[in-house]
């Protein structure tokens, strides 16, 4: 009988196993609990296995309600949350460190992986930041296409959040409906970018390619059919006693708190603060479109739910107007030191071949001035997505900092759920729409 089996017998399968599970790899026979004490909520006498007054509960990192790898550590009194703490970083990938070793163009592919629900918004945000750093402006057609695609992606992101909210409240069909609609949106995105999820559609100085000729028709059909889905969604949920009761009054945020904690996007606007980057500091020609910034006063999960529906309707308005004034012309600026030349020219023309080679091999013209820096913000579906870029005059950025909306939206989460029930924590978490990819980067 090996020593390992002996210890296993001693431990048995009592609830005390729980204690060991916290300390590392309890299934490892050689394991003695020598792993450093993990940071945990208040342990000690209060949390006294299952007989005591308070119980510790881990919500996540692997839990269906977290929609990703988030860990929420709860301390419970009965079913009430007495204290809560969060731990993030499970998806930390080091995007910002990678950026310091990649050229400006190469890093576009990594922006897809941050908010993978709305990759085009990230592509556009990053491209605009680098363009501001270089002091260039993309042609009008590229700007309008960016606006249309951003709004289409915003709708995809919002309806997924709405559907998942339904799933967490027990309305599973809502989630299936939303997914079915989102697939239609991905069909459009696939026709335009060639990919469904990781689009990498923008380039510094324009777009990867022009849209297919039938794109305006596809987008119009989508805009015409979509309001019916929204009506169905509202019909399913508004007035539904279970759904409303679970959302109303949970996770209420006051406007002062929302501003102080740095919340942005639908969450901030659901607290009664009418702030939207598209209105406050318009980019890509958003000032040309007539749309409202919907605001709700509730500040709770129910308010956030209705807020997203209202914002989808505004996005549809923007798409319709933008399709109306989609101009002809190039989608890239006329500067071969920044944008790759056409493939046909590369084969026929030695100058274009050299430009192509230098851009691919050395990054070439995208070398912002030494010491130059910029903070540029765009309105992503979750809120203000900022890029802070510092250049040292080289072809790779000296520093790239992403200001992800989810990071600041999630910081307030423990404060919202203390004193609530466990099931409220699930409702609040899904109404915040935390995307772990951009939270941890």
């Amino acid at each position, binding site marked *: 009988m090996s020593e*390992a089996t002996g210890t296993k017998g001693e431990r048995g399968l009592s609830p005390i196993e729980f204690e060991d599970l916290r300390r590392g790899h309890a299934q490892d026979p050689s394991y003695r609990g020598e792993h450093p004490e993990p940071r945990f909520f208040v342990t000690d006498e209060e949390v006294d296995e299952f007989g005591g007054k308070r119980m510790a509960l881990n919500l996540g990192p692997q839990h269906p309600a977290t929609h990703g790898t988030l860990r929420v550590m709860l301390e419970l009194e009965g079913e009430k949350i007495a204290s809560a703490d969060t731990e993030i970083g499970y998806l*930390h990938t080091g995007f910002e460190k990678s950026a310091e070793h990649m050229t400006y163009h190469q890093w576009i592919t990594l922006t897809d992986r941050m908010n993978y629900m709305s990759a085009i918004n990230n592509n556009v945000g990053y491209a605009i930041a680098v363009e501001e750093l270089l002091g260039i402006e993309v042609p009008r057609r590229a700007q309008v296409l960016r606006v249309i695609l951003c709004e289409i992606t915003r709708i995809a992101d919002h309806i997924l959040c709405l559907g998942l909210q339904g799933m967490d409240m027990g309305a599973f069909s809502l989630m299936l409906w939303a997914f079915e609609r989102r697939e239609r949106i991905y069909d459009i995105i696939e026709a335009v970018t060639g990919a469904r999820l990781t689009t990498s559609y923008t380039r510094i100085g324009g777009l990867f390619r022009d849209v297919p000729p039938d794109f305006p028709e596809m987008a119009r059909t989508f805009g015409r059919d979509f309001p019916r889905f929204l009506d169905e969604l509202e019909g399913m949920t508004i007035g539904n006693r279970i759904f409303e009761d679970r959302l109303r009054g949970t996770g209420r945020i006051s406007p002062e708190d929302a501003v102080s904690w*740095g919340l942005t996007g639908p969450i901030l606007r659901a607290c009664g603060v009418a702030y939207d980057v598209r209105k406050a500091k318009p980019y890509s020609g958003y000032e040309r479109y007539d749309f409202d910034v919907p605001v709700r006063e509730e500040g709770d999960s129910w308010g956030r739910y209705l807020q997203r529906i209202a914002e989808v309707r505004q996005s549809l308005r923007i798409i319709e107007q933008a399709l109306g004034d989609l101009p002809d012309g190039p989608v890239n600026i006329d500067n071969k030191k920044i944008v790759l030349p056409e493939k046909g020219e590369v084969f026929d023309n030695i100058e274009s071949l050299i430009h192509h080679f230098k851009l691919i091999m050395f990054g070439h013209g995208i070398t912002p001035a030494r010491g130059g820096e910029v903070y540029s*913000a765009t309105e992503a579906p979750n809120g203000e997505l900022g890029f802070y870029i*510092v250049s040292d005059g080289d072809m790779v950025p000296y520093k790239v*900092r992403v200001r992800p909306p989810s990071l600041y939206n999630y*910081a307030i989460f423990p404060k919202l759920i203390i004193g609530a029930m466990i099931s409220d924590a699930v409702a609040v978490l899904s109404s915040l729409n935390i995307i772990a990819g951009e939270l941890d980067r």
Partner: protein
Amino acid sequence: MPLLPDEILRRLSDRFGDKVRPGKSPGSGQVIALVAREHIRPILAHLRDDPELAFDFLVDVTAVDHLQLELPEMEGHRFAVVYILRSLRRNHIFEVKARVPEDDPVIPSVQDLWKSALWGEREAHDMYGIEFEGNPDMRRLLMPEDYPGFPLRKDYPLRGRGERDAFPQYRPPRISAGSGEAKETAP
């Protein structure tokens, strides 16, 4: 009415004199106020509380490691802590930078002025090892608790210094055929 960044900088200079050093980024033209770390709290508090400036929203806190980018305005300091401020009431935006030396990377926290600094400072601490004095929660945010390095410092290599191998690892037990009994693997 929104104020232009140059105007905000002029007002700051009027109020604080040579404690504020004006800066302008080449290329993008972004206006920056450079300050020493001793003055960061009064200056940020003034930016927040002055009714004409009214910066009620701290967008982001981050840091820059100037190890390989020596600029005259850094005056030999290695780190710069960057505060991006926005006024929702007045709709203007401004950037403040504080210099922090390498041998004593400490700067006062502003978490009592804006709560969003809680996690912004925590991440800057995690990635650059800068201590924010007065922030009650200086645990690491993204990296593991027992991680030894600060990954976004410029002298930290892209692939790490072998910390991955130094972590305690779980090795699955080898199951010998027939007995069904787990045995420990040979080291």
